[in-house]
């Protein structure tokens, strides 16, 4: 019962502009079969299609769940929690995922780039939520944990360059989003 007091994520979905999966991760038994998952994805995708979630994140309710979502290019990001969940916590998870992906893909946030770097996306998901429990919400920390895998552990200098590159990428991304 106390388990319910801990903020919990039910799934994180990255779909393309046709609602097809790029990368998805489920942390709940609510959708036990693949077909039930696909049905949920289709429902969520269709109902949010006409929204204006490119400027800022939006929120919607489906089947007793809260879904926070944001779109960029041909990618649709979704985070789902239970209806009793704090939606701002879910929004923070979404923002962390969204921004971390932007950092990892060096601001080329589209489906092609995501698929070319699917390993980074999957590692990214792995560093955000563990079995439904939020691990990390800060995008630079998330991206940092993912990127270390491509770094030589004995080369601290490269860390500096990457941090700089991220700062630039982040700046660029902010400018893009604000324009």
């Amino acid at each position, binding site marked *: 019962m106390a388990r319910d*007091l*801990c903020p919990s994520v039910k799934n994180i979905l990255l779909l393309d502009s046709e609602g097809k999966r790029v990368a998805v991760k489920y942390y709940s038994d609510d959708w036990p079969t693949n077909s039930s998952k696909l049905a949920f994805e289709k429902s969520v995708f269709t109902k949010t299609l006409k929204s204006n979630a490119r400027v800022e994140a*939006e929120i919607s309710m489906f089947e007793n769940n809260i879904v926070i979502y944001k779109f960029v290019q041909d990618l649709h990001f979704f985070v789902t929690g239970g209806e009793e969940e704090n939606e701002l916590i879910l929004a923070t998870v979404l923002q962390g995922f969204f921004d971390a992906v932007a950092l990892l893909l060096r601001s080329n946030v589209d489906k092609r780039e995501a*698929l070319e770097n699917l390993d980074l996306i*999957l*590692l990214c998901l792995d560093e955000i939520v*563990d079995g439904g*429990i939020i691990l990390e919400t800060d995008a630079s920390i998330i991206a940092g944990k993912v990127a270390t*895998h491509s770094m030589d552990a004995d080369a601290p200098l490269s860390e500096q360059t990457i941090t700089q590159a991220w700062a630039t990428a982040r700046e660029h991304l902010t400018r893009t989003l604000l324009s």
Partner: protein
Amino acid sequence: MAQPLVKKDDDRDDEAEYSPFLGIEKGAVLQEARVFNDPQLDPRRCSQVITKLLYLLNQGETFTKVEATEVFFAVTKLFQSRDIGLRRMVYLMIKELSPSADEVIIVTSSLMKDMNSKTDMYRANAIRVLCRITDGTLLTQIERYLKQAIVDKNPVVASAALVSGIHLLQTNPEIVKRWSNEVQEAVQSRAALVQFHALGLLHQIRQNDRLAVSKLVTSLTRGTVRSPLAQCLLIRYTSQVIRESATSTQTGDRPFYDFLEGCLRHKAEMVIFEAARAITELNGMNKDESFEEILKIRKTKFGPSMPNIKA
């Protein structure tokens, strides 16, 4: 329909359906996985094959028991490579495959070695993998490493152990409860999310002891809370204490109410929202009234940075 413009860059097909996984087929990828058995491992190649396998699984493809076992055994060979990137992919793969008890034994010593590695990313992730695939017997063997990890200086390692503890509490509560002291120490951590995870675990360990929960809440509402997430947890626990308090006098609960009201002035929006919700629910409002109340509070407190609510 107009033809898409031909892109100048030769590498880019202008094919709208382009995907690096175009035409991917399970059987072919499983064949490719045989490179895992090569004495001279090519880490990049192996990582690519794992990515393809994970892609297939993510798209809803399933492995038969035989296929899963074969892939698992092949993947275990990859522990011989010291490539960090490949090791991370191996961890992901193991978690996806959910090996059975007798398969787990094969990777236990490799994972335990990683758990004590000098590379912190190995330690944190090896802990998470081990705890995901462990059973009670293995858990008692690695218990002391987990207790050390909980109070590790590196927050990534500590969080990995604490979150794993929260999961393990469901299946092996008697073991995890022995970690109380370490978890208590982790609650004092200066690292933001370590405190959050420790608080979550400690509360669950003590959940059946109302007095202990009440003391935990009291000490923290007076102490330093290092992240909005931890603050939200505290708000939830405070509400629970108020609801369950035997005396239920206003005076007895006053400090707890004060704490909740103080949270309305917190700088993090999630905390304000959590507190507003807690207060309205404690005031006996039903969900719709509560929602209206919260909307009012939000309108006055927040500007356009809030997510739009769509009914």
